[in-house]
Structures are given as C-alpha cells and as structure tokens.
C-alpha cells in the first residue's frame, strides 16, 4: 500500500505537469494483436497514447496490480474471477505492449481491456475493449505411422511391448486413447496396454512404446486369471492407430493405420546366444556382418545392445540395420574390413519381444536359486574376418 501511495503521489505531480503542457484533445485509444516476427513474440499493442502519457508511464512504472487494472488480457469466455494472462508490460516510444509469458494460441480469442482512467493522468474516456485473436493456423495432416514393431507376422502370446513409429515428431498428448487392439472378430480387446501416467517416447518423439499389462502377460497373476492374456494363441489381431492422434504441429495423422499379426505360443525361454549364427564378411570389402537369431528380438533394445569390436581392443564403427521380423542384424562398417579377430558385443540389457533376457527368462520360478549379483555386463561372440 505504501508503494501504491507513492505511485499515486507521483501521478498527481505528473498530472499538474501534463495539465500545463497539454491542451489538445487526446487521440482515441485502439487495441490490436501483433503476430510474432523477427522483431519479437506476438503481443497486444495499445496505440493512441500521447507522448506525454507514455513518458509518464515510463517515468513512473506502475506496480503489477496497477498495470493489471490499466491493461488486462484474459482468455475469452472465462469468467472475470479467473486470473488474467500472465506476461510482461512494456512502454515504447509510440505504444504500450503486453507480451504473454507463453505465446498466444493461434485462433484463440483473448478479451483485452484498457482502462484510461487508470493512466497516471487519468482520462475520462470509457474502458476500451476488444476481442483479439491471432490467425488460426491451418494444420495440414502430413504425418503417417510408418510401422508397428514387432513386424514379425507371428508374435508370442506373452508379447511384452510394441513400438509405433511415425514419419515425423508427434505431440505430447497421451497416445493410449488412440491405439486399439482388435481381435479376429473385430472387437476391441479390453485394456490390453499398461495405463501409465508417463509417456514412453524416444527423444525425437517419433517412436511410442506400448507395454502390455504385465499382470495379463505373467502367468498366475490375478488379472491374467480374471481377464486372460490380451493375446490368445492361434488368433489374429489388428493394431489400429487412430488418425485423430495429433502430431507436434497439432495436425491429425494423414490416415488411420492398421497392422495385422497372428499369435503363437508363449515364449518363456531366455535368449540363448549359442543359437545365434554369425556370417562373417570377407576382408577387403564392406560386406555386411550378419547376425541371425532363431526368435525375434526386441527392436528397440536390439538397436542399442549390439556392437562390433576388435578382439584386440577398439570399436568398429558403422551402420546397423535390423531386417523385418527382427531376426537378423546387419552391420556395414564405415571402413573396409581388415583381416583379423573380431567380436560381436552384446549388452546385458538385450531382451526378446517377450522380455526374456540372455540366460534369464522374464518369468523366474522363485523357489529356484536366484542370483542376487548383477548379471555379466556384456557377452562377446567371436568371429574372424579372412
């Protein structure tokens, strides 16, 4: 209150000065919204203030509550009890501006009110009001689902996760409402995916992870006994991704996406590296190193968990590709292969599509001895380039 009192006193002094200086009628005040440009963010502009009025505001910047009484910006349609939009006021040489802390939403209307009676030298004009909006941006659908992983035609009954890949970044809204699983009769499978309040995107927001409810994946757990596994062996299913899912620009997808698969028996076996087959390339070229697996591996972890090193030390850099079906990993080195001993390095994080790890199935009988030490960090599979 003390601060406001001092402000009022300064205004009174200014009023005397201005009354002496100004004898001309004041210009009408107008309100406008200025779109973002190289010069700055989108803002509301108050025009029609005299240079004296602007000087007075500059000379004696009002406190926040006086600014709010002078110039308020509110989301249109909300009642007056709701807070005004938070932002920064600035007095320029020709106008007063309000720049919101968060950019105005394109197409959304904002109710702007300027009360000239709250100027340092009050005008007796009525409150100036305007409903302002930035132009709506037309959102043209451009993003498509490129694939759903796993891509294998047959997946195990205890499939643990799926990935949905998009051609461009997607928005942050929860993805679960846009994904459905239809059974062979075209009926929605009830709650197949784990409802989490965190969204599992990759850093680029182009890949979304869906976990099947582990309560329905694991044997002997109540949801599984009550509802059954989401996937039943022998049946066909369709994953449907709704076109309404919005991309990072707010546009819906170009089209709905559907991918079918069939369900095979549950896979409760650990990954057995001894069953992998390595096809070594020849020295002197850049033929791919090919590693084949008897069962599909998790695409996400496969991308991260396999590497190539020289047996004597050092890494081989290159580009890896995972074949459709996720049973083959191809690696093309940046430089030609030189003859020698190499290793495929397999990190312990690797899992198959059912969550089984190297030498450790997803489901473990708890009456067997459980190793309480960390698993070996990685495995190495030797091969020679000749």
């Amino acid at each position: 209150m003390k601060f406001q009192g001092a402000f009022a006193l300064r205004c009174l002094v200014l009023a005397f000065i201005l009354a002496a200086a100004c004898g001309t009628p004041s210009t009408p005040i107008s309100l406008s919204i200025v779109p973002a440009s190289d010069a700055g963010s989108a803002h509301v502009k108050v025009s029609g203030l005299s240079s004296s009025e602007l000087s007075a505001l500059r000379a004696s910047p009002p406190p926040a509550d006086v600014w709010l009484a002078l110039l308020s910006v509110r989301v249109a349609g909300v009642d007056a009890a709701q807070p005004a939009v938070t932002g920064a006021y600035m007095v320029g040489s020709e106008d007063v501006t309000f720049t919101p802390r968060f950019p105005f939403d394109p197409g959304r209307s904002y109710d702007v009110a300027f009360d000239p009676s709250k100027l340092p030298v009050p005008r007796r004009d009525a409150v100036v009001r305007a409903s302002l909006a930035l132009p709506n941006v037309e959102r043209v659908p451009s993003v498509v689902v490129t694939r759903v992983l796993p891509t294998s035609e047959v997946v195990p009954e205890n499939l643990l996760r799926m990935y949905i890949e998009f051609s461009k970044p997607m928005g942050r809204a929860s993805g679960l409402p846009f994904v459905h699983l239809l059974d062979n009769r075209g009926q929605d499978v009830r709650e197949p995916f784990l409802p989490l309040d965190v969204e599992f995107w990759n850093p680029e927001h182009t890949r979304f992870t869906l976990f099947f409810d582990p309560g329905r994946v694991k044997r002997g757990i109540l949801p599984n006994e009550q509802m059954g596994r989401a996937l039943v062996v022998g049946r066909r299913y369709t994953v449907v991704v709704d076109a309404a899912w919005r991309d990072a620009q707010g546009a819906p997808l170009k089209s709905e996406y559907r991918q079918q698969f069939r369900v095979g028996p549950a896979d409760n076996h650990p990954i057995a590296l001894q069953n992998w087959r390595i096809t070594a390339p020849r020295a002197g070229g850049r033929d791919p190193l090919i590693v084949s697996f008897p069962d599909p591996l998790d695409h996400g972890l496969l991308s991260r968990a396999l590497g190539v090193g020289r047996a004597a030390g050092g890494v081989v850099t290159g580009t890896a590709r995972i074949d459709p079906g996720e049973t083959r990993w191809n690696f093309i080195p940046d430089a030609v292969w030189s003859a020698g001993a190499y290793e495929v390095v397999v990190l312990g994080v690797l899992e198959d599509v059912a969550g089984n790890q190297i030498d450790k199935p997803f489901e473990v009988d708890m009456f067997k001895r459980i190793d309480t030490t960390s698993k070996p960090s990685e495995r190495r599979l030797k091969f020679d380039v000749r």
Partner: protein
Amino acid sequence: MRTTLKLAAMLSLVVLTASAPVAAPLASTVAIGPTFQSMSRLAFGPDGVLYVADTSAASIVAVDLGTQPGAAGTKDIAGVDARIAALLGTDAKEIVVTDLAVHPKTRHSYISVMRGTGADARPALVRVDGAGALSLVATEALKFTMVSLPNPVPNPTTGRSNRSQAITDMAFLDGRLYVAGLSNEEFSSKFWSVPYPFASADNGTSVEIYHGSHGRLETSSPVYSFVPTRVNGQPTLIAGYLCTPLVRFPVGDLKPGAKVMGTTIAELGNGNRPIDMILYKKNGKEFLLMSNTSRGVMKISTDGFGSATGITTQIKDKAGVGYETVASMTGIEQLDLLDATHSIVLARTPAGLNLQAVVLP
C-alpha cells in the same frame, strides 16, 4: 547401468575421438535461471529446496525458491486446472498437471504443468498460497543447481539410441535425493541417489521383489511411488509397485550397481497402480496414506513395517500388513502432506480438478 558403462569403457577411444555424449553424470555449479524442457515430478527437501525432474532433459534441477510472497498455507481452489490455464493464456484441455508438492515451511502448494501438447509445449510451475492467490513462479530469477541422471551412451558402433528415461518418483532422505525411474525400452526398475548439494548421481541400483500375487515368480516391475522413512531406526524406502506390492528396501542396501531384493511386506491388490504416498502421525501412531489408480486411497499403519516377514508364497489377492480404504477420498490424482493435520489433493470431478485440503484420516 553398469553394463553400459563397461561397454562405454571398452569403447572409450571411439567415444572420445567422436566427441559423443558420455554417460558420466554431470553436476553443475550454482547458476541463475534454470531452463526447463519439461517438468514432471516435484519433491521438496526439508530446507525448502525444490527438486524438479526434467524428464526431457534427463536431469534433476534443485531450485532455491528464495522468499516467496503470500499468506502461508494453501487455500482450496475448485477448478484449479481452469484457473491455471487462464493464467497461462489457454484452455484447461491444453494443460497437463504433472505433480503437486507442498513447501515444508510456507505450506504453499506448487503445481507443475505442461502447457500445450505439441512441439511448442512448455513447462510451468504455479504456486498457490494461503489466500488462494495463484501465481506463476518466475524461475528465471532463481538460483539452481542441476544433475544429469546416468543414461546409457548411444551405441558407439552405430551411434543409435532411442532410449529415454521417465522418472516416476523422487524423495529426500538424510542429505540424499532418491529417484525411481523406468525407461521406454527396458521394463525394469531402478533407484538412483544423489547427495545434495549435487555431486553426481550414482549408477543406480536395480531392485527386484518377490511378488506374492504373481505366485512363484520374480518380477522386475517398475516402482511407481515411494516414501523414505525409518524402520526400526534404519533409513528405509517403502515402495509401491504396479499391481501394488508394498516393498521395504533398507537404504544401506542400495549400493550403486548392486541388485537388491526388497522385502514384500504387503500385497494390496491387483489391477492397480499406486500414485502417491505420504507419511503422517495421528494420536501418537504413524500411518502411510497411499492414493491409487483403481483401489482408492489406503490408510496403512506403519506399526508392522519392521516386523513384517516377506511374502514369498503365492497369495490370491491381498496379504501382509493390512489397510483400510478412505472412502471419502475419491478421484485423487495428486496427493501430498499439507500440515500436521491435513493432506492436500488434486481431485478429479466432472467440473474439473479441485485443489483441496483433506483432514488426515
């Protein structure tokens, strides 16, 4: 984490020559004006330092809030989501509330939100005081330090990684911040801890449990909420998992890189996920209050936490320490302790999200 670090060490020459990101956590010195990519979980230390999980940046920011104005306490606000949206210049449908935490001294409520759902989504931290005033916290003027969570390096051979890390809960105990998280690839549970003032986060401890209702199974299901406490005088974390086993982890066992088996002291029912946990005292007894996605709010006496033997046999649905359901608390999406006699909740109603104090049961 240990596995990846070993590979990183083996391939260190390439990492260095390629100037690729390294897995070693980075701690920062005190600076002004943190820049957040996102705000997910919030936690206060006893001195009023606010810890903010920035999942998009894979970091945790410790913010010194300084002196924040306003009447002490938190006043109820019906339709707080609409009010926050109005303050941020948008509609309630365009914001996502990510957490609620109460300042231990001023008892103001801090609510983290994401404004927008597209590429231009921005985080915001909002404060509610005892008079019901709602204000945006001007973080650009605040002191902060930051720590990055250990995250595996991209595959050094191919340079690829699509991994991201979500943080499910954070809590402070005896000078350390404990963090639980899970990733978009591995379906497993990890605890990290980091001393404050920040030095560096450890490499994390994998935690596993016996899940009685899974029957003869070991699971690596993710920790969803936890609370630090003392059990028989020992610093302990009580953690809630998917399908709601309640698990006791002595803090002394959580050594970086170790794999720790917790003791399952209760099975609280399937088809459920814990949301938040708080501890409080009433009539000389201590209780745990736990909000859930589908089994309401549970009140659990901590009397038996120390003596409970682990559940290691198959049970049908529930077992171990008992609970009572607080029937009056419904639609709870966020929960924290407001003061000695009240919790504060964000409760979903048909009209929106209500911020309200609730007498501790």
